[in-house]
């Protein structure tokens, strides 16, 4: 179990214990998350980084218990002292969206095209804050103003297709923060946005989540660097490295994380050979060994555990054993 709780720091808000998520498919069993241990402290902004298919979105959904019924989840997630996977459906439903807000990826698809943007935001307020529809409207306008949608009174009555990509993202952020949750999960909040729009959305996200706990799931290192206090990297269904932001950007320990950083266009565009394994057929030993140029015999047969290297860093690699 990795706890990086140290004196003087906030207590953990979310604790993940030996979480495993598997789902059966026609092609075989997908091990989407394999034995994940992680804690997120109160007020912390944690960035979960990884490439597509590494399980990072599944983790966001696992916290919200939004996974399909056929999914098998073992281990538990404790949020504010409540073990989420021991709660009954009704308590979970009350908690979801109210205590944990979610900003889903692809705002184009997460907004309902036949309802006005305002009514979708107001739904959150009616549901979780118990407001009457009429009183909720003023709050909706206020919220849209807070996420800097110009002319919020007018825009609240418009439909999603009348919004640009950046404006939709703002609306989705407004929905995520409407119930004043203690924690926000933002899944790829900047996907598909232009650079200049992206910068504005990132700043807005920072602004509206001050003092809140946030899990931000992204493959964009710029976003992570801008927003996060701590960064966790996933590869092939498991965490491979966790470090405070500064330390992570200064030096990456895990060979995959090093390769990932260096493959970015502004950090060298140096490719990692090979491709990510499918979560159905995972390699023996270390999951990265077939692509790793520092792999030894041990890496091929033995699966490395997370190693605490001090200073709040952990890495899953025998190089640091």
């Amino acid at each position, binding site marked *: 179990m990795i706890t990086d709780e140290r004196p003087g720091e906030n207590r953990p808000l979310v604790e993940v214990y030996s979480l495993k998520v598997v789902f059966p498919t026609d092609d075989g069993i997908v091990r989407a998350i394999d034995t994940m241990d992680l804690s997120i402290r109160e007020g912390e902004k944690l960035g979960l980084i990884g*490439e*597509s298919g590494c399980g990072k979105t599944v983790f966001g959904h696992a916290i919200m218990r939004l996974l399909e019924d056929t999914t098998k989840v073992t281990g538990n997630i404790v949020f504010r002292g409540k073990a989420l996977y021991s709660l009954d459906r009704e308590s979970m439903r009350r908690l979801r969206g109210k205590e944990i807000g979610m900003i889903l990826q692809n705002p184009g698809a997460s907004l309902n095209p036949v309802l006005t943007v305002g009514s979708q935001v107001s739904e959150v307020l009616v549901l979780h804050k118990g407001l009457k529809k009429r009183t909720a409207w003023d709050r909706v306008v206020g919220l849209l103003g807070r996420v*800097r949608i*110009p002319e919020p009174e007018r825009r609240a009555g418009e439909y999603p297709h009348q919004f640009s*990509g950046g404006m939709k993202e703002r609306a989705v952020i407004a929905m995520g923060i409407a119930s004043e949750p203690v924690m926000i999960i933002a899944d790829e909040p900047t996907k598909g946005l*232009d*650079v*200049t*729009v992206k*910068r*504005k959305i990132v*700043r807005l996200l920072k602004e509206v989540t001050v003092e809140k706990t946030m899990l931000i799931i992204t*493959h964009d290192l*710029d976003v992570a660097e801008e927003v996060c206090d701590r960064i966790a990297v996933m590869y092939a269904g498991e965490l491979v490295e966790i470090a405070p932001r500064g330390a992570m950007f200064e030096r990456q320990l895990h060979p995959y994380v090093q*390769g*990932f950083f260096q*493959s*970015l*266009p*502004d950090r060298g*565009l*140096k*490719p*990692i*050979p090979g*491709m*990510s394994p499918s979560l159905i057929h995972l390699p023996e030993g270390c999951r990265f060994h077939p692509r790793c140029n520092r792999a030894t015999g041990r890496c091929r047969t033995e699966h490395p555990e997370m190693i605490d290297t001090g200073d709040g860093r952990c890495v899953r690699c025998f190089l640091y054993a």
Partner: protein
Amino acid sequence: MLEVKNLKKRFSSGIFFKSYLDAVDDVSFSIAKGETLGLVGESGSGKSTVGQCVIRLIEPTGGTIMFNGIDLRSLNGRALNRVRPSMQMIFQDPDSSLDPRMTIGQSIAEPFRLKKVARNEVKGEVLRLIEKVGLSPEHYNRYPHQMSGGQNQRAVLARVLAINPLFIVADEPTASLDVSVQAQILHLLMDLKREYGMTMLFISHDLAVIRHMCDRVAVMYRGKIVEQGPVSAVFESPAHPYTRLLLSRTEEAEQSVKQENGSGDAKGCRFRGRCSLARAVCETTEPAFREIGAGHTVACHMTVLPKAEITHE
């Protein structure tokens, strides 16, 4: 090799009340043999429209396109079909560029069949290309849905090589791929381009990618090129405020300026609403291109100012 002059593309919509959108307005550039020109801009800037106009996948509204001394716009269907094989396009989404009902081998073999290469030689050629792009012979009989996005993009590259074009337009070829795969594909593209001596128009919204891939770059903003020059010059001393904005890691000041859609009014500089340097002249006169260095041109009234004054923010 390619010379584009005053290219225009106007899209119209509506039947009774026609509205127009000048997606590309008076764009001129040229690409020398073996050179890679990067076209960078945000979504809606018209960069993809330029790419498609250049090889006449869509009909331009005005301007001339000279390709190897041939005026492409004057060609009729049949003559165009004869030129087409020497120009190829690589699209964003590799999965939809391949026929889902054809195996990878069949897709790559198609150009050889069109070129009437003897049937018994085709398979060998296809396998040679499959290896060239970093796939293995086992992929020959696979279908696109059985492959990853990166592998499909490799197959697309193999098919392009089968045609052996002189000129390729690559429109965000890695936009749908993961970063570590993006690096692989871009390296492959660079190597192949060099080996086959191809000329390329490379379209991307990612400046860092452009910097790696291209010799020269043209920056587009709402249908116009605003700055053009060698990659080193544009990246080291960007002159247009928009280029500076794209290159800076800081964020532009939040302004209450409404970003008009389409081309807005024809007068003045299109960037003025977002520009911190905008003066009266920017409202009334469209800036002309001015040469500020070897092959480095910029369309901005304010670049005559001494450098210190035009730093953004």
